[in-house]
């Protein structure tokens, strides 16, 4: 077994699998993880604020930016983590697998880091087109919990590898390069310099030619080694870079309009949807097609003891304001639109409430996460926060929240509640 693992590890040696390439990719992956973690926490707390939290309402495209970065950086994590895992793959077959407490801690934190990262990226991607049936656990809570697991095990991983990271932080000076230890140099494996030889010496292992594994290793031994370690290393890092750039270029247009023309793989396309705006949750999915079109629909505004029911005609008779705000979804896509309707603070004035209060809005939709949202005072008193009745010059489409929906600056789309039924001051 030991010999088999040793053989596998030796066979896997490649000039692109060095500690230096692992450090280069590890830095980029770590940065992408931290970017995702920070933007993810921002999105999380916008949706589940702690009592003392207040949020900036400008620039109006703030959430569009943070969530676009979250999804785009998350996508880039895929080629980066595959590249990073490629660079260190021979380490999987290290023998003996565990040598003490430190190596146990190291391997356990790596297993956790790798598993949690791969799952986090996979479910994040699947969530962008709502393929929830594929995994048997709730998306949001799991994605949130795993983000801490990833950053936590990453911190431990960095702690364990700190010496190696420091040693390979900078590009080795010319000449020293060939002497830089490969991850498996300690087992006497092929160093990049030795790998530069045109072919590997056949039958370098004692078991070559014996049994199935022996034959496989002999076959591998007869395969010429990469002739140019430099080309191999550069080519590897360039490949990961081009793969990342390709993914960004062909998908990020859903969040960043200048790339719109290149958008061929993004799960959303700006301009595609009713009224030229994508829809996440349709009226049919929310089961509001009848209640939203009912003739007796009214928006009930409540503050303390007083309440007032406003029909659509009543709302239209109030001062109308037009604002330009993006709808920016947690799933990463976003699009600027022109909304027209009544300011939330004007509605509150009708029932004698000041504007600096917390407000809860409810949808006609029943029993769903999307059915309700709360506005902190900074959003309630904002001139741009509207109960929108019109979108891009037309009456709201049923799928965009007819007869009335919320629109506020710098908030996730999931909180821009549609098919409103009540607006209530809660404190």
């Amino acid at each position: 077994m030991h010999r088999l693992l040793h053989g596998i590890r030796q066979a896997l040696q490649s000039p692109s699998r060095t500690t230096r390439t692992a450090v280069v990719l590890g830095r980029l992956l770590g940065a992408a993880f931290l970017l995702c973690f920070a933007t993810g926490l921002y999105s999380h707390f916008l949706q589940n604020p702690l009592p003392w939290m207040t949020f900036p309402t400008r620039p109006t495209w703030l959430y569009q930016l943070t969530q676009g970065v979250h999804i785009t950086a998350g996508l880039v994590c895929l080629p980066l983590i595959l590249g990073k895992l490629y660079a260190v793959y021979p380490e999987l077959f290290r023998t003996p697998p565990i040598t003490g407490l430190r190596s146990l801690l190291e391997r356990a934190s790596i297993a956790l880091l790798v598993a949690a990262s791969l799952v986090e990226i996979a479910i994040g991607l699947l969530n962008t087109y709502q393929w929830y049936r594929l995994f048997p656990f709730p998306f949001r809570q799991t994605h949130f919990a795993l983000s801490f697991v990833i950053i936590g095990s990453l911190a431990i991983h960095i702690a364990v590898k700190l010496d190696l990271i420091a040693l390979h932080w900078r590009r080795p000076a010319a000449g020293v390069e060939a002497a830089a230890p490969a991850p498996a140099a300690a087992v006497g494996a092929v160093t990049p310099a030795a790998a530069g030889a045109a072919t590997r010496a056949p039958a370098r292992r004692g078991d070559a030619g014996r049994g199935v594994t022996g034959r496989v290793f002999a076959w591998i031994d007869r395969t010429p080694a990469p002739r140019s370690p430099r080309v191999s290393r550069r080519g590897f890092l360039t490949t990961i870079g081009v793969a990342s750039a390709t993914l960004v270029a062909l998908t990020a247009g859903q969040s960043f309009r200048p790339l719109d023309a290149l958008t061929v793989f993004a799960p959303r396309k700006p301009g595609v949807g009713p009224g030229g705006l994508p829809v996440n949750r349709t009226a049919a999915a929310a089961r509001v097609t009848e209640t939203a079109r009912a003739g007796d629909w009214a928006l009930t505004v409540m503050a303390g003891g007083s309440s007032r029911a406003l029909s659509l005609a009543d709302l239209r008779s109030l001062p109308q304001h037009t604002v330009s705000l993006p709808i920016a979804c947690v799933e990463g896509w976003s699009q600027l639109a022109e909304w027209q309707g009544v300011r939330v603070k004007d509605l509150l004035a009708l029932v004698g409430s000041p504007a600096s209060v917390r407000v809860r809005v409810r949808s006609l939709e029943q029993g769903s996460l999307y059915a309700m949202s709360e506005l902190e005072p900074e959003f309630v008193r904002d001139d741009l926060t509207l109960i929108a009745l019109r979108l891009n010059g037309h009456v709201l489409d049923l799928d965009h929240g007819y007869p009335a929906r919320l629109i506020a600056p710098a908030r996730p789309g999931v909180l821009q509640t549609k098919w409103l039924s009540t607006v209530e001051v809660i404190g």
Partner: protein
Amino acid sequence: MIVPPTRRTVARLALVLLGLALLATGALALVAGVAPKHWPGILAWFAGAIVVHDALIAPAVFLVTLLLRRVGARLPAAVVAIVQGALVIGGIVSLVVVPEIIKRSIGTLSSSILPLDYGVNLAVFLGVLAAVTAIVAVGYARLFASRQKVRPSADQH
């Protein structure tokens, strides 16, 4: 990055403590947010992720690398690297797009989710990638050959 050992030890300790605190937070968030009946599913996905990478993707990449090295034994190293790179790029993009194709064929709750024809787009992308790779690789091989003629002793390592 030249840090005296003592400072590095402090940094290491701080990182481990920070890591443990974050892991504890993650565990608490899991306990608070995800019902225990879903935990086996998460564990199964963890195991599945490791198996898919370590037992499928990585060995497949290794095998393709070996085959390429054999086939390309007489080609310039850079040409082999270019073809290798193109295969990896095509593979990673397919990894992202193929699930979209499958989900689109299953159907979505809104017509603006997955609105594009991802199958056609992927085919076009792979075609363009293959064409660009061929042009670059052939161009490089010719350049290499002409350089070899001019300088027969040139060392290409």
